[in-house]
């Protein structure tokens, strides 16, 4: 049995082998393939258009389309379309925003929270990034960085839940405080801006940490040594050398964290309470609870998007760079 198998395999391999073309040779020799590619690759211009077609169409369809639709809907008086009714153009969705404080307050709250959380994330992660970049041996840096990366692969929901367990009335923090005799009754951390802050910082820290780390890692130690040699103390070295040279990292980190934290929905729902309602919850409400108020939701989303982009734009301008390097 085994022998026959081997023999057959031998025959299969040896006999046709010598007369067979390789796969790619056969492809190239195929007439249909030849004429198809001949047509497609006829000129450099045609090759360029062919290569550009899918990316351009995709970007228009997938990246620009949804935003344009959202903006369009925000000017309609009803959407999704109802049978037999032609939607009319209106500005009332936009006016809603200014009409009621239950809309404006979450809006400003979101922006304020995002700024505060961004600054908090920066302050917390800067020393961590600095330690990693300047005090850990280069060969160990990847390992130390990996240690920080692992929790960030876990999704938003699972990590939010983990914070809920940490901060709950019967959670670890209260347990520790109680066993130390510092408190008698648990402190109600949950459903406050504190729990929301802890959660958001937990969720976004990586987006701050990585740009900071890569900026700090690029600063040659000789710069700091030169500064020390010229008589600069630790604080002066930090303020006059390290901080300015890590500006790029600070700018991209803050931009990312700010944009991301304005967009969280699940974390505020799970960690926050009635006094911490953010704009994301307001927007979502128009799509879930209130029936067909999509146009208002679309208008509010657009307001949020424009505000977030405008604020990051101004911020980047103030930091003295264009948004150009952001994605690098």
């Amino acid at each position, binding site marked *: 049995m085994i022998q026959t198998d081997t023999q057959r395999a031998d025959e299969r391999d040896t006999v046709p082998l010598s007369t067979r073309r390789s796969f790619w040779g056969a492809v190239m020799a195929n007439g249909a393939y030849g004429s198809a590619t001949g047509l497609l690759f006829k000129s450099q211009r045609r090759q360029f258009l062919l290569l*550009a077609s*899918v990316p351009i169409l995709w970007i228009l369809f997938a990246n620009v389309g949804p935003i344009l639709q959202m903006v369009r809907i925000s000017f309609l008086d009803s959407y999704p379309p109802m049978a037999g009714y032609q939607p009319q153009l209106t500005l009332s969705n936009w006016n809603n925003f200014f009409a009621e404080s239950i809309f404006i307050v979450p809006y400003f709250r979101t922006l304020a929270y995002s700024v505060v959380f961004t600054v908090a994330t920066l302050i917390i992660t800067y020393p961590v990034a600095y330690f990693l970049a300047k005090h850990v041996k280069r060969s160990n840096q990847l390992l130390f960085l990996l240690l920080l990366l692992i929790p960030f692969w876990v999704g938003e929901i699972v990590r939010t839940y983990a914070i809920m367990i940490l901060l709950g009335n019967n959670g670890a923090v209260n347990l520790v405080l109680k066993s130390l005799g510092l408190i008698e009754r648990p402190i109600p951390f949950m459903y406050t801006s504190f729990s929301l802050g802890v959660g958001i910082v937990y969720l976004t820290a990586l987006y701050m940490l990585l740009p900071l780390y890569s900026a700090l890692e690029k600063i040659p130690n000789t710069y700091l040594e030169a500064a020390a040699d010229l008589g600069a103390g630790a604080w002066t070295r930090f303020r006059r050398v390290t901080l300015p040279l890590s500006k790029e990292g600070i700018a991209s980190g803050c931009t990312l964290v700010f*944009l991301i934290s304005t967009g969280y929905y699940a974390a505020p729902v799970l960690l926050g309470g009635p006094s911490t309602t953010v704009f994301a919850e307001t927007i979502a409400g128009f799509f879930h609870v209130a029936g067909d108020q999509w146009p208002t939701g679309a208008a509010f989303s657009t307001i949020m998007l424009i505000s977030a982009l405008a604020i990051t734009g101004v911020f980047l301008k103030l930091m003295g760079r264009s948004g150009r390097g952001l994605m690098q």
Partner: protein
Amino acid sequence: MSRNTRILMSVIYWAFVVYLFVPLVLMVTMGFKDSKFIGFPIRGWTLDWYSEIFRSAEVLGAFGYTMAIALSTTFLSLVIGTWIAAFLGPHKFRGKLLVFALACMPAVIPGIISAISLRIYIQFLQIDTGMAAIILGHTIHNVPFVALVVMARLATLPKSHIEAARDLGADQLVAFSRVTLPYLKPALIGAGVFCMLLSFDDFVRSFFLGSYQPTLPVLIFAKLRSGMSPEINAISTVVLVITAILGIWAERSMRRMNKGTSV
């Protein structure tokens, strides 16, 4: 830097590590607690929650659904992202910066706005909420990441390699499949696993684009809204283990890529 600041720095680093890990450790621990009530004290241990979720049609269904979405999303994102990278990477043309910015846009748009605009968009395209809508949404979100990773790798491919292939008789397509693609392999593996992670973890898009069948994060969210339970911990722990494995795999393949295989 003085000795004291150095020590202070390392204390901050390790405190940060503790901050990152303690919540997760707690969450995993609670999944083994022999009580329906989440919190301290813990009086007994059990594996019941795990055996329960592995028998739960709801959980297994959500897992399969999430996996199917993640795999399809990854495939689509790799194809489109690589195509965009192949276009934007080596070519110079007017308006390239604008095209590049638009290509990256979905990666930086705040989550809720991305989800809402997609919800409106699928209505406009007359795609029902559900799997197709989620796959579309995830793909839109993931493509920029693939494009960026592949572009970074492509930038290190010497132009002469493609020219050598052309010189030896390969047309553009054959040169791409036989030289460019193998060269991109580590980047594609890394970006692919990263896409799996993003899709597997995504909540906000899956939540707004999904129908009755929930993905795992949406299922956890729904269960959380009706109260914490060790069952949720067990599900979350499974998710955590899967994502950690995927993450380490992605990290390893990206490392290998950075070490470089070019000659």
